[in-house]
């Protein structure tokens, strides 16, 4: 699996490289990066991994974000003790493809974790993510106890001025945020910004101190994800974020990718709204995030490439 993904990545990278009339050097994947000028790429109509391949290529290749020797964290949503088809957790194949790409780009180490809501071992196992990540060569880190979190200061935050963030994020060179698109009974929607709650230890603080503000505050952490890759292959449109049955799931077959966390969430929510009406203004953390200058919800300002498969 790892080698096949590597070859695919290398092939795509080299095709992109050839288009740009650059030299093909598989070992130094950063040389296969392309300046596409895209701020965001949206793909729909394909399977998770092919959609991701198109998207990352259109964003200039993984080598643009992950440099040789980097310690990388890939942070999916593994919040719930649910199987992949229930769309409560990020698609494991997508996670594996991203990990393989990071290694292909020269990452020295890739770590995967989440601060789960349900019992963590059941989440890691039943989501299929732990197994997929290990097969792709990543380390699956423990995140179930406060001892694995380090205190950080969030000077730009309004309410959440101090937080404990998982040590692998604090210690990494770059991290990639890989949420799944779901409705959410508390935060209205959960996408990339809400996925930050899984890197923080004290989630209760968010809920008791203005949830929407704290979600925006967490995203002011100085070490932003180099990419946010929104898994919208299966989306949960009701009873989120945990869901109760397959009736809660829609097969949406989409993927969004951008370094701009507010923008990618805005795009994802507007896409979601076609399945189930969702007023962007009611998802308070989007506007609050924009007010904290962590991104823009004005998609017209961005160069977005839309790909249909």
């Amino acid at each position, binding site marked *: 699996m790892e080698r096949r993904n590597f070859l695919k990545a290398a092939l795509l990278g080299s095709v992109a490289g050839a288009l740009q009339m650059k030299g093909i050097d598989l070992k130094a994947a950063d040389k296969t990066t392309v300046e596409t000028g895209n701020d965001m790429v*949206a793909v*729909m109509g394909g399977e998770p991994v092919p959609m991701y391949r198109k998207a990352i290529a259109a964003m200039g290749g993984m080598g643009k974000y992950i440099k040789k020797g980097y310690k990388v964290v890939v942070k999916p949503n593994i919040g719930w*003790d649910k199987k992949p088809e229930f769309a409560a957790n990020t698609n494991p194949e997508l996670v594996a493809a991203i990990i393989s790409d990071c290694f292909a780009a020269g990452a020295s180490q890739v770590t995967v974790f989440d601060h789960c*809501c*349900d*019992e963590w*071992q*059941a989440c890691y196992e*039943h989501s299929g993510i732990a197994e997929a990540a290990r097969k792709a060569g990543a*380390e699956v*880190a*423990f995140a*179930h*106890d406060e*001892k*694995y979190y380090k205190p950080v200061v969030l000077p730009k935050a309004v309410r959440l001025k101090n937080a404990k963030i998982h040590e692998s994020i604090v210690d990494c060179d770059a991290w990639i945020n890989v949420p799944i698109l779901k409705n*959410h*009974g*508390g*935060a*209205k929607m959960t996408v990339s910004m809400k996925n930050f709650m899984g890197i923080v230890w004290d*989630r*209760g*603080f*968010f*809920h*008791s*101190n*203005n*949830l*929407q*503000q704290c979600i925006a505050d967490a995203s002011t952490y100085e070490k932003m994800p180099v990419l946010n890759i929104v898994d919208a292959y299966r989306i949960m*449109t*009701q*009873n989120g*974020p*945990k869901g*109760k*049955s397959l*009736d*809660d799931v*829609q*097969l*949406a077959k*989409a993927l969004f990718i951008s370094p701009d966390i507010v923008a990618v969430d*805005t*795009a994802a929510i*507007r*896409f*979601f*709204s*076609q*399945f189930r009406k969702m007023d962007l203004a*009611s998802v*308070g953390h989007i506007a609050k995030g924009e007010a904290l200058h962590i991104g823009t919800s004005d*998609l017209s300002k961005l160069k977005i490439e*839309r790909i249909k498969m």
Partner: protein
Amino acid sequence: MYKNLKKVRIIFAGLFFLIILASFLHFSSGWGTQWTLKTQFVPSLLAVFAGSALAFILLIVLTLLLGRVYCSFLCPLGILQDIIGRISVAIGKKKGKKKNGGYKKPHNILRYSILGIVGVLFAAGISYPLALLDPYSGFGKIAGQIFGNIELSVTNLLSEIFPSAIYYQQYVRFSLGSFLFALIFFLIIVLMSAFRGRLYCNTICPVGSLLGLISGASLLRPAIKKDMCVRCRACVSECKSNCIDLETKEIDVTRCVACYNCMASCKKGSIILAPVWKKPGSANKAVEAGNTDTSSANAGQDKQEIKESPTRKIESIGRRNALIAMGALGTAMVAKGLLKKETPAGGFSSGGKLGIAPPGAQSITHLKQYCTACHACVAACPNGIIKPAALEYGIDGFMLPTLKYDYKFCAYDCNICSQVCPDGALMPLTIEEKHLTQIGKANFRKDHCIIVKDGTDCGACDEHCPTKAITMQPYKDGLLLPHLNQDICIGCGGCEYVCPATPKAMIVMANAVQTQAIPPKVEKQEKIQVDDFGF
């Protein structure tokens, strides 16, 4: 051949002990060894009421064949005492301490009084004394509270050394009342077994006393070939039950735990396992030599048996006692079975909040009747939410398992506790049954809710609710407020655990009798296909 029986016993018991222990330790609790707990005597007796009598019948038959082999081969507390005895002998050798202490008269009044009291109360539906004295359940508490916490400390130490391979665990399993009980019980066992072998088993243990009585009718039993024995006392000093009387060259079968140490120690090979109808009296007895000289052997034996009429008398008393014991046991079980239906549903007495019984307990009354507080469920719970009760069920429910939602909640797709219970106190539930088993009901105290108090979004309870008994419904200023449908709620405690308000706005109150929840609403939605990105 008889000399090797001890080795067989040590190997078997050692392995069996490790398997039982594995069921109580965190790192091995997922190995599925818990079925072995069903071989334990008191659980097998209780399981009869849950509809499975196989283990119980096998144990009775085993005892009728071979005496108290349960005590040496299967009982983890018995094996633990043997281990402690060995350690104390190893230490004692250096100090020149004597072993075990020779033949002692049985403490009949004490042991049969305890058995009688425990038995009568059990028949009357009061299982608590049995829960306190059952050797298996006592071992369970020691294993969980003492060995389990030692294990936790060791793995947490290792998690510092190998941070990416071994994970840290909170000490959530620690429970002061049970820990102290287990510690005191353990110290008593250590003292008794270090100085007097199986004293606990032959004075206090109701299982030992009962099986001892039944052994009075056992077919094969250790016996001394009287004319071969030279009274060297090697067997006496090895006997953990102090039951070999060299004055009469008799072995008290009601106290013999079938450890076979005597056979291994006898240099003359004069202690054998003999059928009760063939007394190994004469030297030419045909047990090992074969039946070449049957008539003279038989004649010799007959003469011997006539001379030994006191022995025959002991045997017939033994058989009579065994019959009485089995009759009494049967009567007690029938009485308990009849009383079962008449017991009122909610016979608890509790000052504070009633404890929430684990799924499958049926009712707190059922739990009290059948649970022996072995804590197999406490050890097996992957979320560590099953704790020994303090007084949540009243004084007669001390140490029975109860759910605590302080650190975690009951996982929706988990039924392990109901599967591992060997007593039938928790009746096995399928996942589908578990999904509908209402162990309690959430109560929404709106005034404490963050959304009402602070006017900000929350919905943590709704996030965690697996059945959607909690839904978020329009409140004011674009906010959504939890709405609770108690009929769908199964009492898993996800909402209570996660509620960020102080005091909590969601509290689960126990069902004294567990009921069926209404299945979660089916919310079909049209499968939508979109062709556009929407932005």
